[in-house]
């Protein structure tokens, strides 16, 4: 049944879930919400299982008309919401009636927000996930960002009457400079002095950054003798050094293999930060051991499990 109508789509709004697994060897990246924690939280606040497909909002939010009585919630980067012209808060369940509409503004703190509605969106599953991979035009809503006039249907409405609120401080961390932990890869070939330079640099997020990867600018670093390598597999969060000596951090829609030297891969628990970084934001990298990384991963998983308590 028809559930919502897009009056204004916002800058770049796509449907995402936690992504698809198992297709890297075919050249299909995982895609999925860049800020996982915020995405899971938005689903919880409307009584959905955490991995239901939701809307990822980028920098400028949408204006939406509700075609059914529903519940919705918005989490993530700080964004203003007006329901029928009246301001309402993020991070809580909001009940709407057929004919209600919401308008949202700029993401003022952070870069991306997540909007969930109570129910399962009626869109086809593609390679095991509902996430949009715009580059290949697959997944989500017709494989693309939402446009004015789009009507999204629900397979079923989940009648959710409970009011949930997340009084959290997670949004406090959405500010520059961002410290990001990573695991070193080829420790046997690395030129130590250049590696130190990479660690000491405060990198700046370039405007050419997007869901495929975040490009950073700063001093030129060349941590390896060769500036190109025979293409090898990449992971989400892999930090490549491009020919001109600046890094790019591969993200959810990024390439699965690559021919630029790699320094290492960002911790899964720090990947969410890239979902909230904006051009001009600063990033500092910190090397982390595998043991520490496993610990941080455990903590991150516990943090997500705690979502069900709100």
């Amino acid at each position: 049944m028809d559930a919502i109508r897009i009056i204004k789509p916002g800058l770049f709004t796509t449907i995402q879930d936690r992504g698809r697994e198992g297709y890297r060897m075919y050249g299909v990246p995982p895609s999925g919400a860049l800020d996982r924690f915020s995405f899971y939280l938005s689903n919880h606040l409307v009584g959905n299982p955490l991995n239901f497909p939701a809307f990822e909002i980028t920098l400028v939010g949408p204006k939406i008309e509700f075609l059914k009585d529903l519940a919705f919630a918005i989490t993530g980067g700080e964004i203003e919401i007006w329901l029928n012209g009246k301001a309402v808060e993020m991070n809580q369940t909001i009940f709407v009636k057929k004919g209600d509409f919401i308008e949202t503004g700029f993401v003022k703190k952070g870069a991306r927000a997540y909007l969930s509605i109570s129910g399962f969106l009626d869109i086809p599953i593609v390679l095991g996930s509902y996430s949009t991979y715009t580059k290949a035009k697959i997944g989500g809503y017709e494989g693309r960002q939402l446009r004015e006039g789009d009507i999204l249907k629900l397979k079923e409405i989940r009648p959710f009457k409970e009011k949930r609120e997340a009084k959290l401080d997670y949004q406090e961390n959405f500010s520059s400079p961002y410290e990001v932990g990573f695991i070193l890869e080829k420790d046997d070939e690395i030129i130590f002095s250049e590696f130190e330079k990479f660690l000491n640099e405060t990198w700046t997020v370039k405007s050419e950054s997007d869901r495929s990867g975040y490009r950073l600018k700063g001093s030129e670093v060349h941590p390896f003798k060769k500036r190109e390598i025979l293409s090898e597999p990449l992971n989400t969060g892999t930090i490549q050094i491009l020919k001109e000596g600046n890094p790019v951090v591969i993200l959810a829609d990024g390439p699965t293999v690559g021919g630029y030297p790699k320094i290492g891969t960002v911790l899964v628990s720090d990947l969410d930060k890239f979902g909230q970084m904006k051009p001009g934001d600063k990033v500092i990298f910190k090397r982390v051991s595998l043991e520490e990384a496993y610990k941080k991963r455990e903590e991150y998983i516990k943090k997500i499990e705690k979502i069900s308590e709100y």
Partner: protein
Amino acid sequence: MLENAKYFPLGEDGILFVIGNEISIEENRIIWNIARRIKDLKIKEIKEIVPAYSSLAVFYKPESIKYEQIRNLIENIVNSSENLDKEEESFRKNIVIPVCYEEDFALDLEIVTEICSIKKEEFIEIHSSKIYRVFMLGFSPGFPYMGILDERIQVPRRETPRIKIPPGSVGIAEKQTGIYPVESAGGWRIIGRTPLKIFDLNRENPFLFSPGDNVKFKPIDTQTYSRIEKGEKEWMLYES
């Protein structure tokens, strides 16, 4: 070449296994054989295996298995397996891809023939007479990195990438040849186009190619191209 095998963490849920840094059919065969043997073990803690030219990534669940265990597993397979460099003939098929090398599709062929100082007919003969190996898939869904291209037609990438390459476009770059499955930007030189869908979600197996496949190109004219594209002519994908 396995004496030089190295292992590195690829983040907290991946391990990278590297045996070389030059395009080599032999090394790729070893990689693919190791990948299959890992797959055959059906270990539930392993999420996926990604083969590349001379390297392999294994993605695992850190909740149930750790880096050292995966590393030991791969080392055991490497040390205890025989014939890692042998091809398993039984499941290898030659995939035949129809390619139209005519002007409308072969966007960079003129410049390529200039760079190589050969005639167009020569180029087509050389490109379509070899059986290529699919070394790996990547860049976009189902994009096959194939090789090794005859020396006479190896050319560098374009200075600036083309912004929109039509799907089905066949490209070359140095030792490699590939086919763009979806419209995208790209830096390879386009020398023809196939009417076949390299990536098709409506097909049971959406991906036409898998790593390790053998591929041959067959020249077709624009009429045949059109008939295949419209579904008026069926194409025999496999060489009998």
